[in-house]
């Protein structure tokens, strides 16, 4: 795809980072602060009000358990929601300048991931400082996993951003769908606490694999390999390729519908 040598892409990424995160001086602070506050809210609600149970055999506290999965999810979800809007939002650019339109959603997803990866590292440091043992070798090993998550978000966004040009309702449907996805992913709870019948369904959720692998790596320093680990590095690029084909198939007609 030759994305990184393309200066349109880097221009778009830096443009989105600047408009979305660095508009003001406190922008970057809020990037860390907002999820931290959100984390505090979830921690309070689910430890005190709902009394959430997590598999406690490894002696992990609820907050680190939540935080390690919550950040990548936030990046993933925000990237998809923001990225889906990019083609419609940049109607003026699409209609006037000839350039590969897929760079719009891809750059937005990438900008979101770049910023949230920074936030993720900051949170891991905060966790380490507050007494949680972080496996830093596991964090290094988690980078390919985050890379895969980024590609996965890119793939989905290529579909949704193109679709939103034709079916504007995508903008309304997507947020509740992402919320549904959030709650069907074991971020706030652990799968081992679910009834057997439900657990089988959850295994089909790709995000289940992402978050449990992340926890294994970062909090436990383990990597139990399974057939999914071999399949994912093939399936995600394949999905990305399909997404690109889908996007380009309709890109020439965007202007008619914008």
């Amino acid at each position, binding site marked *: 795809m030759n994305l990184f040598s393309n*200066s*349109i892409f*880097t*221009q778009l990424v830096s*443009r989105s980072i*600047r*408009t979305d995160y660095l508009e003001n001086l406190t922008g970057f602070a809020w990037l860390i602060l907002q999820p931290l506050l959100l984390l505090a809210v979830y921690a309070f609600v689910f430890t005190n009000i709902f009394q959430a149970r997590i598999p406690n055999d490894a002696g992990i506290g609820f907050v680190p358990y939540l935080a390690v999965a919550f950040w990548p999810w936030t990046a993933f979800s925000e990237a998809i929601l923001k990225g889906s809007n990019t083609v419609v939002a940049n109607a*003026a*650019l*699409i*209609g*006037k*300048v*000839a*350039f590969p339109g897929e760079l719009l959603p891809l750059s937005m997803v990438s900008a979101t991931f770049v910023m949230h990866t920074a936030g993720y590292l900051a949170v891991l440091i905060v966790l380490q400082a507050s007494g949680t043992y972080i496996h830093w070798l596991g964090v290094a090993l988690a980078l390919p996993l985050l890379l895969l998550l980024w590609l996965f978000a890119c793939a989905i966004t290529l579909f949704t951003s193109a679709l939103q040009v*034709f*079916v*504007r*309702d995508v903008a309304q449907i997507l947020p509740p769908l992402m919320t549904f996805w959030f709650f069907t992913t074991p971020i706030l709870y652990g799968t081992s606490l679910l009834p057997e019948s439900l657990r089988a369904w959850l295994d089909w959720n790709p995000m289940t694999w992402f978050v449990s692998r992340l926890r294994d790596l970062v909090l436990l320093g383990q990597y139990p390999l399974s057939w999914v680990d071999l399949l994912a590095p093939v399936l995600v690029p394949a999905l990305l390729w399909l997404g690109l084909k889908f996007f380009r198939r*309709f890109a*020439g*007609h965007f*202007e*008619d*519908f914008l």
Partner: protein
Amino acid sequence: MRPALVRVDGVSKYYPRVHRPWERLRAFAALVAGREPQGGARVLQDISLEIMPGESFGIIGENGAGKSTLLKVLTGVISPSRGSVSVNARVAALLELGAGFQPEFSGMDNVRMKASLLGLSSKQLNQRMDDILAFADIGEYVHEPVKHYSSGMVVRLGFAVVAASDPEILITDEVLAVGDESFQKKCINWIESFLHRGNTLLMVSHSMYLVQKLCQRALWLHEGRARQQGEVFEVTQSYLAWHELRSAKEKLGREAQPGNGGMYRIDSFTLHGQGSTGVAQPVIDTSGEAGGKVEVRLGMGEDIGADMVLYSPDGRPPVALFGIGRADGTPVYGVDSDFDRAGPLQIDPHRFRYRIRFNAPALLPGSYSVRGHAMDPEGLRLCDTTERRLRVMGDSREWGFVRLPHDWS
């Protein structure tokens, strides 16, 4: 023979109707099924053109004729509904004021963005940044957000980046008109040297002067179709003539038609040219009612002759008046037989023939109408009027109606 840089083959563009949600869905469903969405506006129909390297090509036409859409198809911003487009060169397009500019960002940031869209690497951009800023010449404003710019400043910056991107084809859509006089001159100078270096230009403009000055060939788009394509003077002149005729028609609709009930009337009126070379030009008989629909064509400087037979119920010779005007009705010259003390040739007791010849008139190329009027014998009352079209052909970039004798010293 070198291959064409730009080849447009039978291109049509329909915009599907997508205002209501179900229309969007239906159009989208058609796209998914691999069909073109039905209905909607036909913006371009069956356009073909070829542009060779080093050529300059103008596209003219009324508002809404499809010029901008054609440029969008050419630059690849939209795909045609039918037909094919191939462009085999590095293109820089200036389709709209500040396209790709983000108003919140400074001019400098936008230059970087625009440069990347035009395919400049950051190394190339850094090398050429001084040239860009010098060309745009907007001073310290370049560090201000673009939203504080005047439209002229936006164009300056946009054109400066385009100029720096060193394209092989420049495609512009009536954006230069926004700049002030000196900037327009700067742009035109740049375009001329750009063409001189053997590059190719494709421009849309409503300024026939600019099109004639910069382009060799032109395409006249009318309601999405190619009405005429060819040598620039030919195309622009017929376009202007068409405009004049149209406004003349509007004028005629407003004014009361001159009455035909006068006693003295025109029996026949014939317009013919005779080339200065002595070769007779086609003479168009005009006794029919539809006479006004045909036109006599002359080269510039050729003689114009007119014959008019007038009917007089009382046998006294009526006064004849001949006039030449632009097709929109602006008079150029008129003279009557009374003033010149010219007598008619009596054909029979009631009919008189007048003949007039305008020797090598200085009329500039364009569309004219030649009128004949019948007046009463006293030369006071206008009784009847008829009109024929005349088209003067030729290449000229002079202004006005007539060529005045002049010399440069």
